[in-house]
């Protein structure tokens, strides 16, 4: 009995020791070490503008061999950098703008993220799904929320930080075609409605080469877009949409199928196509393109290029409609972020602060319609509705939705593009 007791005791002691050792050896929950950039952003977040300016100046002075690299697919950043250098003389000649097209820049960002290497001090990118899944979830791109006098960013635009918002709308030659041609989105399926006639002359950039257009088509199948489409359907055909009469998953899929089939012209570049709007009177074509591209429409350049009227004339010659039943277009963002491997994080924070200020925004995108600052205090240009209005009237990019339906929606869209019934 004693022996047995001894054995039990030994066993208990051994087990106790094992558990004790295991307990001692048990690692504590790993505390994620903050990167230098994270620490700098957190510090910058608590600074006044003057303090941030001082920190950025000191940072640049301490690293005379470094240049503040800003990567972006919009040349607005180039102009904003020029304004930044003008305002902060100590930064003059120490900034560089690198023009990067989205699809070509993404592999570069992924390579830098995987190797945790330096790529730039500031980046401005689009494509919500790429941003979320490849850059934010991996902690490679970080947000600094600008603050200070005159800057007010909505909570939903803060993380990730929206820099500038864009929209793509349906444009036409305002001198001959006019707004009356397109009043309801269902016209663009080519089918006649109760009172309105279908149109079959929409020009659309192939979504296989333009990601934003693919996102637009995917978003048309979302619940929010379906709601808009259902109301417009009733108004156009005079009856409620009855989903049981066809095989589509929802009214959005039906619209996509009929819209794609009815596109009359597939263009290869929005920028080039906008320049041809004056030739659209031949067939009354309707062009789906970025509203900001209207600045490239040069129809009136010959007569007005040296006058104050040039811009006004240009954007009124090419028109767009803000009263289309259904939706007026597509709204999407470009985000302004700091890579986790940035070498000049305080300068990046100051630059982000600058482009969200009235002065900085004016330097980069001011005076042009189709650009909208995430700073609620900066209004859109005269004649262009406020961003909140556009968001209400347009289909808005939503990363969660795109991720959730991508595989199915893209296959469906591919089938429509191939003309398979």
């Amino acid at each position, binding site marked *: 009995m004693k022996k047995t007791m001894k054995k039990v005791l030994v066993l208990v002691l051994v087990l106790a020791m094992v558990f004790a050792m295991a307990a001692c050896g048990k690692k504590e929950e790993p505390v994620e070490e903050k990167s230098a950039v994270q620490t700098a952003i957190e510090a910058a977040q608590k600074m006044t503008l003057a303090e941030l300016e001082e920190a950025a100046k000191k940072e640049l002075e301490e690293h005379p061999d470094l240049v503040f690299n800003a990567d972006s697919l919009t040349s607005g950043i*180039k102009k904003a950098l020029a304004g930044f250098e003008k305002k902060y003389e100590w930064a003059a000649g120490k900034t560089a703008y690198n023009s990067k097209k989205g699809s070509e820049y993404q592999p570069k960002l992924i390579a830098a993220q995987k190797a945790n*290497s330096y790529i730039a001090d500031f980046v401005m990118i689009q494509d919500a*799904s790429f941003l979320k*899944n490849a850059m934010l979830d991996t902690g490679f791109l970080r947000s600094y929320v600008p603050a200070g006098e005159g800057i007010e960013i909505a909570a939903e635009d803060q993380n990730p930080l929206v820099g500038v918002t864009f929209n793509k709308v349906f444009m036409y030659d305002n001198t001959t075609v006019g707004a009356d041609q397109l009043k309801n989105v269902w016209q663009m399926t080519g089918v006649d409605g109760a009172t309105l006639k279908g149109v079959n002359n929409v020009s659309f950039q*192939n979504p296989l080469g333009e990601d934003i257009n693919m996102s637009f088509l995917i978003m048309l199948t979302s619940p929010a877009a379906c709601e808009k489409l259902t109301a417009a359907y009733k108004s156009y055909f005079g009856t409620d949409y009855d989903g049981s009469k066809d095989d589509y998953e929802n009214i959005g899929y039906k619209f996509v199928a009929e819209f794609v089939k009815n596109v009359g012209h597939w263009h290869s570049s929005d920028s080039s196509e906008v320049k041809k709007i004056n030739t659209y009177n031949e067939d009354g074509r309707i062009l789906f393109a970025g509203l900001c591209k209207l600045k490239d429409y040069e129809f009136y350049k*010959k007569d007005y290029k040296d006058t104050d009227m040039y811009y006004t004339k240009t954007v009124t010659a090419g028109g767009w409609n803000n009263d289309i039943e259904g939706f007026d277009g597509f709204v999407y963002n470009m985000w302004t972020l700091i890579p986790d491997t940035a070498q000049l994080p305080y300068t990046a924070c100051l630059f982000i602060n600058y482009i969200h200020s009235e002065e900085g925004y004016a330097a980069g995108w001011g005076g042009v319609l189709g650009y909208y600052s995430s700073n609620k205090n900066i209004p859109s240009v005269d004649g262009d509705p406020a961003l909140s209005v556009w968001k209400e009237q347009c289909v808005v990019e939503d990363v969660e939705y795109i991720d959730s339906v991508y595989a199915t929606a893209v296959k469906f869209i591919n089938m429509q593009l191939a003309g398979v019934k």
Partner: protein
Amino acid sequence: MKNKQPLGNRLKSYFSKPANVICIIFLVILLATVVLPLLTLLIGSFTVNGNQEAIYIGQGVMDGDFTFNHWKELLTSRDFDYALIKFWRPLGQSTVMALLACLVAVGFGGVVAWFITRSDLPGKQFISTIFVFPYIMPSWAMAMFWENFFKNTQINAGAGMLEGMTGICVPESFVYGLFPCAMSLGLHYAPFAYILIGGILRNMDANLEEAATVLKASRFKILRKVTLPIVMPALISTVLLVFSSSISSFTVPFFLNKSSISSGNNFISISVQLRSLINTGFTKGQGYVLAIILMLFSIGILTLNNWFTGSRKSFTTVTGKSGQVSLVKLGKAKPFVAAVLFIIVAFFAIMPLVSFAMESVLEVPGDWSTFTLRYWLSSEGFEGSNKGDTIGILRSSIMWKALGRSLLLSIIVSLIAGTFGLLIGYAVAKKRNSKLATFVSNLAFFPYLIPAMSFGAVYLALSYTKGFTWLDGSFILLMLVGSIKFMPFASRTGTSAMLQLSGEIEEAAIVIGVPWIKRMTRVLFPIQKASFISGYLLPFISCMREMSLFVLLAASYTTLVTTVLQEYSRTGLSQAANAINLLIIVVVLVIQFVVNKLTGASIDKGVGGN
């Protein structure tokens, strides 16, 4: 019992032959520079590439997991007919397009090459000089010209040149879709066929044809039994290069696909599908699958090529004994043939240049009242359209620096690629039945088959890897990538030229104790100078106008002229983009002229332009 030499002696004997040393050196170089991207593509086709792809596949997979999903999805998915639409149908249509392009390129280029080299056609030099212009231009330039010429109001595309001049409206399928894509690509690559086939025809020993004539063979029989077999390696090489280039061309099918879907004329090529798959984070792996399959296609043609050049058939045409070329007399047809050729060649070679020049000086396309030289000469920023601080391209220091960098890069790349190609050609010719030589030769061709964007992406990843970060954005990286990517041009021309050379020529030099370097530089190179210079000029031209390959790799301090062009194009300044295009062509022509003056050789002279 077999008397075996000691290993040391055998190695010494093996390495005493220059061809063996070349094979071993290039085996090592190519394994490091070509197999790496190939493996990356292959691995990428079996792994989950990023979080977006994991979302697409679902089933709880994570980034980096092994998966068969990309292959299964792309080749077999019946969900919304996905495999059929995304892969099988585009593959079939694109194969037809590429074969048609080959036919146009080989037919047009071959016929012109024959007239230039084997007939007494007048105006050869002029025709020969301008015939290479379409190859110097980017391929989409021909597509743009095709559309501008044939578009018409009946298909709601605006009046084109043909309609303006004659009132003729061609059907939509002639302006947009598969047929015009094949024609544009065929015309773009016709000079390539002309260079390769013409090089052989020019150097062909006339005694062979004369012997056949003496033996009373008919002209057709001579063509079939003598001329065609001799040009066969060049013909197959041309088909291989044109097919691979055409099937992977993105810009032409993307530009010329404007028809509505209901017209039935809408054509989505396999390259457009490839680009859309690779550029989207959700389907990168499927893009890699497609790239691999396209490579397998080309490997099939490569095998055919090897069968022709590697079998016992001999294609020796240059014996060093006769330089006589007897020209076929065209007789009364001479002026007619000359006029027709002149009109056709000038039309496709000069008109696109004219259209570039016109587009660069008009504010509004087609409206001469908006004539301006500011996109060339203005020292002030382009006002009115908020384009920033862009100035006339001839006054822009950014443009000049980029042009200088492109020139330097292209010269270095052509020297490296050209020399590598020549050496590989020598090794292949010397060791024609050796498996190692065939392997090295095939490996040297592989970079051509890897899509430029993928090739660039692999080297981009390398430049971010520890120990290689010094390469990031550097000029050395551009040089390395350019030299490897454009080596196939040089290795093909080098091999074709070397295979033509009779072994007796070098053997004679060996007998009298001429060292290898001297044999190469004093004997072999001078005999086939024209073909070898082509091997240097082709990588030069390709490098000067390359965009996709370098776009990922060039940094702001290594900007090239094509990246500046792309920037203008992207910001809607098509006038400045057209001006740069024209400038690139002019620069290449000037370089060709200088090379011609210095060495007496040029691309077209290599064929027989004088």
